[in-house]
């Protein structure tokens, strides 16, 4: 299969992730969307690395994966504390700040 197949696949996953971010009400749900988007990034990187027979892409993937983990950790922590103070994790109920 050609490079474009993988790239297209990644693009689709990316779009789906974006869709999730846009439509989910629950903060955790949104997080999952973001996960998908980053996942698409990984697919891209690995695909490019393979088709250029270059290791940098793989290293890059490693870094993105770990950064993703960190982000998720922070994000979930925020969700939890948010839940503590607001008793909800519905992202679109948060409009104390607006305008």
């Amino acid at each position, binding site marked *: 299969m050609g490079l474009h197949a993988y790239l297209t696949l990644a693009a689709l996953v990316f779009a789906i992730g974006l869709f999730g*971010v846009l439509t989910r009400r629950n903060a955790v749900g949104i997080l999952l969307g973001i996960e998908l988007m980053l996942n698409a990034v990984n697919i891209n990187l690995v695909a490019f690395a393979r088709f250029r027979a270059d290791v940098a892409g793989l290293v890059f993937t490693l870094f993105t994966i770990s950064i993703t983990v960190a982000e998720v950790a922070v994000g979930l922590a925020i969700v939890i504390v948010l839940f503590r103070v607001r008793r909800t994790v519905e*992202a*679109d109920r948060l409009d*104390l700040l*607006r*305008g």
Partner: protein
Amino acid sequence: MSVIVWLPLLVLVLPFAAFVLLAVVAPLRRAGRRAAGVSIAAMAVALAGALVVWSEGFRSLTTWAWIPADGGPMATVGLFVDPLSNAMLVLVTLVSLLVQIYSLAYLHDERPPALGRYYTYQSLFAFSMLGLVLAPSFVQMFIFWELVGLCSYLLIGYWYDRPAAASAAVKAFWITKLGDLGFIAGIVMLWSATGTFEFQALFAKAQEHALAIDGLGTIMFLIYLGAVGKSAQFPLHVWLPDAMEGPTPVSALIHAATMVTAGVFMVARVQPLFVLVPDVLALIGWVGAFTALLAASMACVEGDIKRVLAYSTVSQLGYMMAAAGAGASYASFLHLLTHGVFKALLFLGAGAVIHAVGTNDIFRMGGLFRAMPQTGVVFIVGTLALAGLPPLAGFFSKEAILAGVWEADLTWPFLMLALTVFLTAFYMFRVVFIAFFGRAHAAGHPHDPPWAMRGPLWLLAGLTVFVGLRLWMGGSGGHHGPGWLAPFSIALALGGIVLAWATYRRGAVDPARLAGSFPLSTLDFLARRRYGLDALYGGLYRGFLLGFSRLVGWVDRYLVDGLLNLLSACTLRGGDLLRRIQSGRAQDYVYGVAFGVLFLLVWAQWWKR
């Protein structure tokens, strides 16, 4: 600097010095009579100087650069001394002096500061008038032309807290200004065509026919407009009667003897240019004659002694203009001088009467001849002169005018003027018979005025006679009209007198019936309403000008500025709307990002090619 320059200059500067002194040194001005002393002294010296200049017949032309420019000055000021100006110098200084002396008594119960103000204005006026007379160029003439207008404005409004006086002053300024617009425009056009304002240069060009400018007619007409305003020619004559709100001596000086004749003087001064445009000259003649007749007719129905005199002034100015229009500038100038003398006399006489009686209304006077004989005598002398009976000054000058107009075969103007002779005699004697010989019903005991007023009266009366005799002896210089002319005009004058006598003294004719009979009735109706001209101007001013201005004001405030406010208001509203996208929901913010991405992607695709 030779005497022929500095002496006229001195004559010019003295009143100015007096003015500056009074204007700057407030205590002196507030002292009142002392201020008067200063001003009068200055005038006396000036008169002496003027007499010398006149009798020696100085001629000189001196100019100084006034507005510098790259290639030589753009405009100059200076002195233009020649017989014309010399005669005017004498007239102006003389009358001013007499009037100032006269005013001393006439205004004796004014507050000192007010009196000081009066004499400050008087000095300024004298200066301005002299400057006008001596002007070597259009610019200088215009400068002083405006200044005399200013003085007239200030002096008419001397009693500024009288509403009537205030509006009269403003009216006078506006209407004369209207004429001056033409004047300034005209001289500017003339300048841009010829590159100079100076009379001599222009006359020289006129001599060698180098003045064949297209539209010279228009230019000269515009210049003439200035004279129309200043010399109260139809249709801009309406301000002069109202100007009578000022103190009587002022009327005598400014609105009879000197300022109002500036127009005539100007036309006489630039005769060489006017002769190049015969049509304009003809127009001047026609307008002059018509003005004379019109004013006379209004004078016949006027009950206010000063206004009668004012109308007669307008009428006489009409004569002068007619003469100038007929090319008889000599005659017009002669009449200017004589009229200056006897009209001043009449006004001062009227002033004495008013001073004594405390009213302007001739019907509230009567039997004054017995009460104040001296005033009566001099007033009658003046009246006769104005009516144009020999051997008084008025006769000769007026006859010269009639002759001039006849010879220029302006037949219709001639007839109008002739009719005016009759009317003049009539309305003047109407005043005399009613005021001096009518049944006395004046409150209190009017009596002759103090010498400070009597002196000038007698002096002027004497002059009237003397000048008349002098002209008789000297064969009134220049040319006579056809032989029948003199008797004809005398007859007309006598006719007028007789009618007045029959109507107002003898009672043979009932004035009411006279006015009631058909052709006269309409005239009477119109004349009493000043032929609706004042109403017309008032309507234009109030209805058109103020109305339009209010419209413009509204447009500016609510449309032009409105658009601006609209813009700013929309900006504010826009900000308010735009912040709505800041909904506060996280997903919407992500939408923001998504749209941003889209925008960038599309935009990139778009500009890539």
